[in-house]
């Protein structure tokens, strides 16, 4: 009975939540990866498919909707409210909108990382869905010129003195290590050269540890924000894991963990449960984070494997 229920749930997910971007044959091929290496083959496949019903996949339409919400609800609306508070609540909407336009014109959105990476890549869609002018987008080198102070330390001076706010963007913050390494020097140099500018950070998803890291004083000093914060309950095998509460009686979480570890070790020997033991069950149309369990995304270079949410890994 549970097999039919599980299959029905997956078919509904494919149609109603995953926008048909994942095809049924992909799911079948993925289930066939489980050949009884960890324990009984049928039981392995049942556990794998049940875990798949808990996987959070965000297709193209939903990612665009997240980008729309990030701008509308977490940039535009707070700024409009701040302007209204400053002008007085009885100020006309036309005056407030005009002030907002000026604020927006003095803002630059900057993707974190290389232009070919997912954060910067998503900024194109961010611009598109929010009808923003391309002049509002930049990168660090276009925005700043590097100077050296007396002690030889870099300081970044603005090329355009009319900009008062830089908003850095990424799709997912894992541990915060990468973005911290990438930005720490730059943010210090910006504050050194142009201390009056406002520095903000926006992302779609972030782990609690990652967003806390970004909110440290030397980084964004409390001005880093994410749409969805992933605490430890989003780790598949954490004691407070949220994915499998209410699971049927035949489902044993330790068995799933054994499955993920046995196959994950063959696929990604040093990160069987995901980068930095991420244990996430999360994927997007444009890529699957490496913090997610590799059994879902590995493309089978070390060990034959058919992924269901393929990750396009960096070489």
């Amino acid at each position, binding site marked *: 009975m549970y097999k039919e229920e599980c299959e029905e*749930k997956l078919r*509904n*997910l494919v*149609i*109603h*939540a995953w926008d048909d971007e994942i095809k049924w044959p992909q799911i079948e091929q993925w289930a066939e990866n489980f050949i009884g290496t960890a324990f009984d083959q049928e039981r392995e496949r049942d556990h794998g498919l049940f875990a798949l019903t*808990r996987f*959070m*996949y*965000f297709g193209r339409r*939903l990612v665009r*909707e*997240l980008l729309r*919400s990030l701008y*509308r*609800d977490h940039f*535009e*609306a*707070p700024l*409009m*409210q701040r302007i*209204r*508070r400053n002008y007085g*609540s*009885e*100020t*006309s*909407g*036309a005056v*407030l*909108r005009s002030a*907002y336009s000026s604020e927006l014109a003095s803002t630059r959105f900057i993707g974190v990382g290389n232009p070919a990476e997912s954060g910067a890549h998503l900024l194109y869609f961010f611009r598109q869905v929010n009808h923003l002018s391309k002049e509002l987008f930049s990168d660090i080198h276009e925005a700043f010129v590097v100077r050296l102070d007396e002690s030889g330390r870099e300081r970044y001076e603005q090329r355009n003195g009319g900009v008062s706010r830089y908003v850095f963007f990424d799709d997912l913050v894992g541990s915060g290590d990468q973005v911290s390494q990438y930005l720490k020097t730059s943010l210090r140099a910006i504050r050194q050269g142009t201390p009056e500018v406002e520095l903000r950070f926006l992302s779609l*998803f972030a782990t609690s540890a990652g967003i806390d890291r970004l909110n440290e004083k030397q980084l964004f000093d409390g001005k880093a924000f994410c*749409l*969805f914060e*992933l605490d430890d*309950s*989003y780790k598949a095998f954490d004691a407070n894991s*949220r*994915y499998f*509460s*209410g699971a049927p009686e035949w489902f044993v979480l330790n068995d799933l963990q054994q499955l993920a570890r046995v196959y994950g070790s063959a696929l990604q020997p040093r990160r069987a449960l995901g980068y930095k033991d991420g244990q996430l069950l*999360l994927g997007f149309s444009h890529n699957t984070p490496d913090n997610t369990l590799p059994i879902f995304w590995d493309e089978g270079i070390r060990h034959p494997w058919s992924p269901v949410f393929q990750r396009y890994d960096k070489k």
Partner: protein
Amino acid sequence: MIDYAVFYRRPIQVERISKELPRFDILVSAFNSSDRVSGVFSGINSVRKIWLIHPEYQYLPVDLPEGHELVHPTSTDEVVQVNALLAQMGDLNGKSICVDITGFMRHVLVFLTAKFENLGLHQFTAVYSEPQTYLKQEHTSFSTTTSGVVRPVRGLGPSTTGSAKEFLILGVGYDDRLISEVANNKDGSVVFPVFAFPSLSPDMYQQSAIRAAASGEVALRSDWVGNRRFAPANDPFSTANTLSAIVNEIDRKGGANNIYLSPLSTKVQALGFSIYWLFEGRSRGAVSIIFPECLTYSRETSIGLKRLWTYTVELRRPPA
């Protein structure tokens, strides 16, 4: 058109509730068994605190909270419930009012908002506590029994045109049975399902999509997929903005159109539907808010308190 971006809203960390919110004259909250409701009730500073005991929760006298004012309406009808509450609240003139909408019945919340406006209240503060997770994920039940009747909220019914084309804008939540009842009642209307997205947590969108897929025939229709729209689960003003955009889109195509709004998702979205009706739907005409009549409702559906949202609900149109 209203610029919904100007309305004040912000999240508050759980441990900072008493520090971040001002002291109110009257706090109203609908009692239920969720810790998040009782925690917020005790955390907010207020001169008076009133528990509204919805009959739908079916509490026995022995279950009721002690130490604060109680309002215990005798009927599920929204007019009876709101009148009982207002009688207890007394004169509202010059009072600062906070309503925790977390445990409210949707039809009562919608009617209360309209009634506040009708009484000349300029604004009130609504608060909503986000759960960490729902008790049984996609199997969580909210309403437990309904009468089978789908009807407009009193006073928010239509002045419809008989020959008009009908549109149903449905706030999609976890309750497939309610969706099914409304869709069947408005059989023949064009459906715009509004999904709560971004959801309160990333796993909840899929859970609601799975539940909604069980709503029967409506979920198999092409308009269910083709007309799909999204509004954040925790933002009433963005929800009102989404409704405004949908109705404008419908009206741009011309003709006489009857619009039925049915917010079956979060209480925040129900508040958003109500705000849209007050600011735009009422003056447009032929816009009504409809619900299936719920007779009983689950007392506890969630685990934990993630954060509190506060919304300043202004009941007068801001200057254009």
